[in-house]
């Protein structure tokens, strides 16, 4: 296996993109960065898709002036990637608009804070205390209540 094989370089690029994307999602706490991490991840996946039938030296699958090239690239991945990119754009736009709203509502784009505030909101709406590990676990179950009475007798 030749380390300088073009395939290896290209695949490394694709996987590298994906990994950078994942890295962005994993390490970052900022929502915008996470969203762009996803975009990168998608780009990597798209590249991988394109590479799946990549062949060095193949020409574009277009008949120009009626002449059929000797070797044409596979048109399917190209069409697929086209689709995938557009989907990606749609979702990206959606993500950004949601991010705007979240920022507006919670005043932050930090994932941890958003999570916390979301949890608070859910708990408030449900009318229960915010579950928190810093508090002692609340005894709410019938079982433990029964158990407590048991100990008394």
């Amino acid at each position: 296996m030749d380390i300088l094989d073009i395939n290896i370089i290209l695949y490394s690029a694709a996987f590298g993109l994906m990994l950078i994307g994942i890295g962005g999602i994993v390490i970052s706490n900022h929502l915008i960065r996470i969203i762009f991490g996803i975009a990168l991840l998608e780009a990597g996946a798209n590249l991988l898709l394109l590479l799946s039938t990549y062949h060095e030296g193949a020409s574009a699958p277009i008949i120009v002036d009626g002449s059929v090239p000797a070797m044409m690239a596979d048109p399917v991945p190209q069409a697929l990637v086209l689709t995938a990119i557009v989907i990606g754009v749609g979702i990206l736009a959606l993500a950004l608009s949601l991010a705007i709203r979240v920022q507006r509502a919670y005043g932050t784009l930090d994932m941890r804070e958003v999570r916390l505030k979301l949890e608070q909101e859910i708990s408030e709406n449900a009318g229960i205390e915010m579950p928190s590990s810093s508090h002692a676990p609340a005894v709410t179950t019938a079982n433990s209540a029964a158990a407590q009475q048991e100990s008394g007798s």
Partner: protein
Amino acid sequence: MTALDTLLLISAITVGVALLAGNWRVGGWLVTILYALQGAALLMMSGLGYSTLTVVQSSFSIEVLSEQLLWRFDALSWFFALITIGAGLFSSWFASGEWGERYRDNGGSLRLFHGALALNVFTMLVLLASGDLLTLFIGWELVSWASFLIMALAGGKAFGYAMRYISYAFAGAMALLGGLLLIYAEVGSFDFQSLKEAAPQMQASTLWLLVVLLTSGFGVKMAILPFHLWQAKAYAQTPGPGAAFLGAISSRMGLFAFIVVVVQLIGISRLVEMEIPFTFLDAQDLLAWIAVFTIIIPTYIALRQHDARRLLAWHGVGQTGYMLLGIVIANDLGSAGGLMHVFNYASYQAMLFMVVVAVIHRTGTSDLNKLGGLFTRMPLSYLAMLIGIIGLAGLPPMNGFVSKWLIYRSLIVDGSPLLFLGAVIGTLGTILSVYKLIHNIFLGQLRVEHVAVREAPLSMVIPMMALAVIVFVTGYFPGLVLDWTSAVQASIGIPVLAHHLGGVSMKGGLDMIWIVSVLLIGFGFGTLVFFLGGRSRRVHQLDNYAGGHFLTAETRYHYSDNFYPGLMHLIGPWYRNSFEWLERGVISAVDTLSTAMQGLYRNAHPSYLLLAAVVFALSWVIV
């Protein structure tokens, strides 16, 4: 339409009628009559109880998962069904009169109560009729939920206890399901017969797993250690006659299933072969020891109770140990004793609960520290309770003695001194605590507020008295019940006990006719001698003095609280509530895990997990 179909049909109708008409004044009586009809249908199959019939099939069957689901009655089912219907009949009778009206006036739904009771009877009959492992499980679950229903009727505190029950019961049912499905995986069928044939070839490890799963499953319902915590409080909180019914028979369903699967199909002889490494014990011993601890610990917990219903309910747990012990010993004496104890126990436990309910009905409390001296006010109830506690304590001449005698005797034959000792310790504890029961309620000082109390109404007294007659007569002529248990023994393949009307025919046997007669004659002589003496003067009940000082009625001098101070002082430290600790430990473990999982879902960035998973998966595949 076989007799079994008739029985199940009537039982189902009973449920319907109870739900429809339960609230009417006559509804209760109607239901009671229907129970009597069920009893009649059962008597149509009485050949089962005398070994002249082996099996009565139901014509109803369905095919599921290419398994034919069957329902049928054999001697074992018949015996348990007899007790079930009897308990249902008397409980319903008890509930039909004044008690029911009071219950309704207090805002309880009598319709639901009767419905739940009838449903319990019906589901139990369905369970008893199960003809294969799958129907057994179905019946099992139905019974569990039916009992849950009746336990939860009272609301409030009862909800908590019912909840605890269903948590235990469902976990047990799941263990049971695991066991039954394991059998299916091993045997390839839910059929009883196939299991019986395959059991001798099973590997010891599989068998161990099976025994553990099945015993825990059945054990939860029986409330054997360490699954006993739910029972007493749940039963105690069940509305009046419901407690009598549940206490009498409900938990016996666990024993029934245990007998069917472990004793009849797997066989005790297989258990004996399963040795526990590094000990002298085998699986049978293990079960026997569990049974003995089930006798001892709950009995001494009962000794501490100061609520009559709880006290009785804890004894219910303890008495289960005797039955299991007898069954596990599985010789002719032991199994007969265990089975007979089911009957005997049902008769006096139902009666005792009824007495307590009657006392509650009249006085409004079952707190043993707030009663006393009711003997003069409720003499018939007192008589019933006296007969009941003699039975519960297992003293002659009541029927409880016979079954316990059989169990003791089987332990002597089996040569198990420590088990025997354990059983006796249990009996002694029972005597202590039942004396406390009767003393605190009926003897001693009459409270001023109870001076006007009258005897319980006839609708309550008659079922009590009927049960008292049963307790006495089957103690006098134990052969009546032993006929049935012998039929059961024959049908489950255990050596049949040689018996006659008075008891057991063997070397060093038992003849209750003689013993009871002698006892009665002895009492006669005692009476004679007593009345030959000088005339005595009856003083008023409240005319008392102690230590040379007159005690006024307002002074509370009834010695009731902490009745056995010396004993408690000594054994008090042994009440460590270890099982509650265990239970709470399990609960808090689940709680911790649960909190952790919630935290996982709330806080963890999924990608962490994902990344770890991917790395793990890839490295796993590569390596």
